[in-house]
């Protein structure tokens, strides 16, 4: 942030701090065009980028304000730690969304591309919904758009519904690896759950020794 603020050109994933530096010049929120198009993944990636940049800027400003109170660099840093963690979280979230979107570009099969696109969109919109405060605060999202996000998210759930089992099958975990009665490939859960329970060590005998040791003597006393 400091290098970008000083006009240095950054390289790598953080180079967005250069770009955002310009776009986040102070101007009234109402006059800034809102960037989120809830149906366009690229637009959502852009929104995550600007949110990250904004949170980095807010954390940096917090440090500066602390320094103006004549505290040491270390104390200024510690007094801004919550903002700093939020900024890192936003940076990572941006990277994950960006990589998901980039992965789609490698997928040739249309059926797979379609279902993964739906997943990517869901992931991005859910993140926006979870962190709507950030997006609203930076003017990247308007209140009416928030309800669009919610509606679109519900549509995506319904759209994914037919492919849910296929999508987990694609992970290709063999039953022996998953070792889960509930997650068996054949779905025959209840028979195997009963079978599993019957093998519990407690069931080695019909009457557990503790009955003779404690319960029966107790009954005799009462």
């Amino acid at each position, binding site marked *: 942030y*400091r290098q970008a603020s000083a006009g240095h050109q950054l390289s790598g994933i953080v180079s967005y701090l250069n770009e955002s530096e310009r776009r986040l010049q102070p101007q009234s929120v109402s006059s800034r065009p809102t960037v989120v198009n809830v149906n366009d993944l690229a637009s959502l990636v852009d929104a995550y980028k600007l949110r990250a940049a904004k949170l980095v800027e807010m954390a940096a400003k917090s440090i500066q304000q602390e320094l103006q109170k004549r505290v040491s660099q270390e104390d200024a840093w510690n007094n801004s730690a919550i903002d700093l963690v939020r900024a890192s979280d936003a940076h990572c979230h941006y990277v994950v969304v960006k990589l998901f979107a980039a992965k789609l570009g490698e997928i040739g099969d249309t059926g797979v591309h379609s279902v993964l696109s739906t997943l990517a969109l869901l992931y991005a919109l859910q993140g926006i919904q979870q962190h709507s405060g950030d997006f609203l605060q930076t003017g990247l999202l308007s209140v009416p758009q928030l309800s669009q996000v919610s509606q679109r998210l519900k549509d995506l759930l319904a759209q994914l519904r037919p492919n849910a089992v296929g999508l987990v099958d694609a992970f*290709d975990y063999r039953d022996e690896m998953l070792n889960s009665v509930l997650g068996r490939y054949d779905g025959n859960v209840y028979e195997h759950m009963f079978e599993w329970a019957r093998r519990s060590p407690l069931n080695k005998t019909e009457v557990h020794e503790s009955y003779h040791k404690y319960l029966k003597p107790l009954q005799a006393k009462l």
Partner: protein
Amino acid sequence: MNPDITRERENATFDVEKLTHILDGGIEKTKRRREIESLVISDPDFQSEDLNFLSRSERYDAAVKKSAHMILKLREYGISDPEEIYYYSLHMINTPLDLHLGMFLPTLLNQASPEQMETFFIPAWNLEIIGTYAQTEMGHGTHLRGLETTATYDPATQEFVMNSPTITSIKWWPGGLGKTSNHAIVLAQLHTQGKCHGLQAFIVPLRSMNTHIPLPGVVVGDIGPKFGFDEVDNGYLKLENVRIPRDHMLMKYAKVEADGTYVKPPSAKLTYGTMVFIRSMIVGEAGHALAKSCTIAIRYSSVRHQSEIRPGEPEPQIMDYQTQQYKLFPLLATAYAYKFVGQYMNQVYHRITGDISQGDFSELPELHALSAGLKAFTTWTASAGIEVCRMACGGHGYSRCSALPDIYVNFVPTCTYEGENTVMMLQTARFLIKS
């Protein structure tokens, strides 16, 4: 086959096999992974009583047996590619030899001088030397500069004297340290000629290679039951004036001459590469743990029928409830997202390893910052996500038969080991603010 789940599969609008190839990184990778998995699953020596029905000691015993068997089989099949070893080991939750394979051997490869490789590597490869990696201390974790264990050089005998000067300096947590290992690579503050030169790595014998009894001055044992990791003897290590020869300090980079003169390593950044590697692996693990949890919860949600949507109609599959979809589908999307990030980090790690060997460190700071942040970001979300999957299975999610409790208790340590997550986030923040 349950008719519900059969119908679900008939409804899919895409080719599941093709997506599996994408997740594996190609058809050949899928084929090879399945071959290796079949090798393990069909091997009777890997069958054991359901771990859920065993005591802790029995679980440890079963894990040692499987690890020993795995090492023999890896040699027999000539499997040496780290990725294939990973496929092979996926059937084990955690094993007491994990750190020997995952940390002790790689650290020798990265930091031992040629002479030290001669001395230590083959015995370690043949498990005469069973090693672990002892860094974390009872009172010190992520902040490495705070570690207290000392290694003081004695030029008269050309030995280092190892000590745990305080109770907080006792090594704590390393896997395999309690009962399994007979050596450890111990990270300690190097003192020579009256000056402290910071952390160095030392190979310290812990137990007799004949009787496995702890050596004089070595106080070692199991730290006791934990939330999970029942199969692993995470241990403690207290050193009381243990003397080791000068050539037991790993000297590929930093050195101590016979007279005690300290020679600095060419670059302080060398250990960053290993950190990036380990954290990249953890990012992949987050995708893996979440993917397993989603598989269990979503398959179960397709066969579980409960309550009603329209009065009088049969009980619907619980996956038809919007609330169930809202719990699980975003996590499914997250599992895919993290799997792809894991693939990306793996590719990046291999690229920068090439750069480093050319002496180009330029990308390392950014990748170090990114891997730290992503490790925290993905493990926090995945841990919470596994718990959501478990709860989405209702009461049955609470039974060990679901496997979800095991997945949770064995994944959640990723939030604290290899760097506590909040500290990781602040490392990323440091880079962001500097940038």
